[in-house]
């Protein structure tokens, strides 16, 4: 090491420099060590170790425990300092009283990222001193710490995770959360909904790396296309705001704020003081920074789904609604109006083409938007179905298409077990969706009615779920909430300009 490099080393140590970009070592880890792996197969540390050992992680995983020479057939080291070579990422699973020593050794070994699972640190009064000891050890080097009280991370590219059954299909969504439980929920529910993550990070107490650092990481990380945060508390609000402004100017940012307590204000002698609660300030901060405010977990998943839609097809223009059942169309129109979502005005050319396709249209009422057709006419002739959808999607005023598919009506018309015709309809929808240039949103209604639609419902969902440019929705509320988020990801938005 040259003298100037040594000077730099010294400088960044003196400045108590913590570099969030070191997280890349953890997300792309090739060699990880786990301190405190038990040989007892019922202990959490052993379960976790085996999961990584047997799971899709392609790198090397080394157990550390002074009481054993070998655990699960792997050579075990008494201390991390005894392991030859570099380690990218260390998970510390020892009880809290042994954590400071583990951190000390990680710092000494120059481990880039250490993750502390144990709780009972800064989040409780009795643990504040212990947390201070961890920080003191970290000040001696460059190691950055995740946690304490952190569940760790999910990185589909390397095959690291914290949940059983992950799909490990990498995407561009990065979710960073102060709640570990929410990490596993969002991963499992999100993957089931077709969301693909770049990384998920449980940050716990944020004792060392803190929210501004994580936001900065997302800005620099090329694999993050959209950043989602679940924040309960932050120490330096201004630093967070500044980083959010920077991030939101280059990527979409979604934020769910947990814990909407009233502020412990110093004074409530003024109107302003009485009226302005903590959440008002968060809300204002998010708007000012250009961050999308999320209302809850469902909203998060639907907003991310809208993001995924925007990657498959451009989002622009207005909505076309088509399906069978007049009443439902009317209710959908009403709900759209309440949400101020505009319906597309069909061109004369489209209207003429529809009249040609549906010659007896006048008996069914006017052709327009929403377009409603009786179930037999809609689904008997799938060639016609395809032509209708294509005609609508070719209209320049139509930006996206919401197709509502009522399985009760379908079962009554074609039989509860008419799988052949169901397959034909599903295949037609799949091939049509692939051909058209606008997003196809498929609202499958009543897919789980006992003895009537449960068989065809399950089959339809399974088939359509894999369709390119098909977004499946279960209920009208979800459909509306998804569409409501479209402007955030529209072609004209700042990130896409």
């Amino acid at each position, binding site marked *: 090491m040259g003298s100037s490099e040594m000077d730099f080393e010294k400088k960044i140590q003196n400045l108590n420099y913590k570099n969030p970009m070191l997280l890349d070592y953890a997300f792309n880890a090739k060699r990880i060590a786990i301190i405190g792996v038990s040989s007892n197969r019922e202990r959490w540390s052993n379960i976790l170790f085996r999961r990584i050992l047997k799971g899709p992680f392609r790198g090397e995983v080394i157990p550390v425990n002074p009481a054993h020479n070998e655990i699960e057939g792997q050579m075990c080291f008494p201390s991390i300092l005894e392991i030859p070579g570099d380690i990218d990422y260390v998970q510390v699973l020892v009880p809290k009283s042994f954590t400071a020593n583990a951190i000390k050794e990680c710092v000494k070994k120059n481990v880039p990222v250490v993750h502390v699972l144990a709780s009972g640190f800064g989040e409780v009064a009795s643990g504040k001193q212990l947390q201070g000891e961890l920080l003191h050890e970290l000040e001696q080097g460059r190691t950055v710490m995740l946690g304490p009280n952190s569940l760790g991370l999910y990185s589909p590219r390397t095959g690291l995770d914290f949940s059983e059954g992950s799909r490990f299909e990498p995407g561009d969504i990065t979710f960073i959360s102060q709640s570990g439980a929410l990490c596993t929920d969002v991963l499992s529910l999100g993957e089931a909904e077709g969301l693909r993550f770049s990384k998920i990070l449980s940050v716990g107490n944020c004792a060392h790396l803190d929210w501004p650092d994580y936001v900065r990481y997302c800005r620099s990380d090329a694999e993050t296309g959209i950043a989602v945060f679940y924040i309960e508390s932050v120490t330096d609000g201004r630093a967070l705001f500044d980083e959010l402004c920077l991030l939101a100017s280059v990527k979409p940012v979604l934020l769910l704020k947990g814990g909407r307590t009233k502020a412990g204000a*110093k*004074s409530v*002698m*003024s109107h*302003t003081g009485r*009226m302005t609660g903590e959440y008002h300030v968060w809300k*204002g901060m998010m708007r000012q920074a250009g961050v999308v405010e999320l209302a809850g977990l469902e909203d998060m998943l639907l907003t991310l789904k809208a993001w995924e839609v925007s990657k498959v097809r451009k989002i622009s223009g207005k909505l076309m609604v088509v399906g069978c059942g007049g009443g439902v169309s009317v209710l959908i129109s009403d709900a759209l109006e309440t949400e101020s979502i505009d319906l597309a005005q069909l061109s004369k050319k489209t209207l003429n083409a529809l009249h040609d396709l549906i010659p007896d249209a006048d008996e069914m009422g006017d052709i327009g938007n929403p377009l409603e057709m009786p179930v037999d006419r809609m689904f008997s002739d799938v060639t016609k179905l395809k032509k209708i959808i294509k005609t609508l999607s070719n209209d320049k005023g139509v930006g996206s298409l919401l197709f509502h598919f009522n399985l009760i009506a379908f079962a009554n018309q074609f039989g509860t077990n008419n799988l052949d015709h169901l397959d034909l309809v599903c295949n037609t929808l799949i091939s049509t969706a692939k051909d058209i240039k606008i997003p196809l949103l498929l609202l499958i209604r009543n897919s789980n009615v006992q003895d009537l639609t449960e068989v065809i419902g399950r089959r339809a969902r399974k088939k359509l779920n894999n369709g390119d440019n098909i977004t499946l929705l279960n209920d009208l509320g979800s459909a509306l909430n998804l569409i409501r988020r479209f402007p955030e990801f529209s072609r004209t938005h700042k990130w896409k300009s």
Partner: protein
Amino acid sequence: MEKLRSLSSFDSRALLEEAGICFSEWQIVNSAQEAILVSVKLNAPLAFKTASAGVIHKTEFGCILLDVVGADAAADAYDIIVKRAAIAGSLTPEQVLIEQMVSGIAEVVIGLKKDDIFGPVIVVGMGGVMVELFQDICVRLCPVSKEEAHIMLEELSGYDLLNGFRGKPRTDLSALTDAIVAVSQLGSRKTEIIELDINPIIALAVGAIAIDSRIIVEDKK
């Protein structure tokens, strides 16, 4: 040790005027005789309020009298305010503020608050009952640009009232946003301010005039 203190009417107005906020014509008097002289000089109707920093809740103690017209009424109003301010615990009840009343198109509240997490924040809301009843407020971190100030007004449910609702004249949005920007900059600059209210600022077709203000500061020892 930190101590919170309310600025006197004179001091809070002086601070805000220096920051660029316009107030209606006003003067502080110390006797009934002075009150008569000022009432002749200013345009009626007038508002009489205690100028004492010690009285926080002026309305609750009846320390504000509105629509005062003429010399006799001015002398009576002065005496009433002094008595009530003394009951309210004022150490300087003889100080009474007289100001020209203004009627405009709509009332707006502009405030500052020092947030524990984000530091000084600016709060804008519709004045009168709207602000308390409907919590029709909008918050930003200080300071804000004129453009952001405009977005804040647009976010209020009562924005239509400012923007020419049902044939009413449109208010001077530029003057309002100037006031918001000025207060937000004051919040960034004067970190000792814990809370500030301009309640209300009257939105006119031309200009925006502050009527009442209150500033709470923290004395650092």
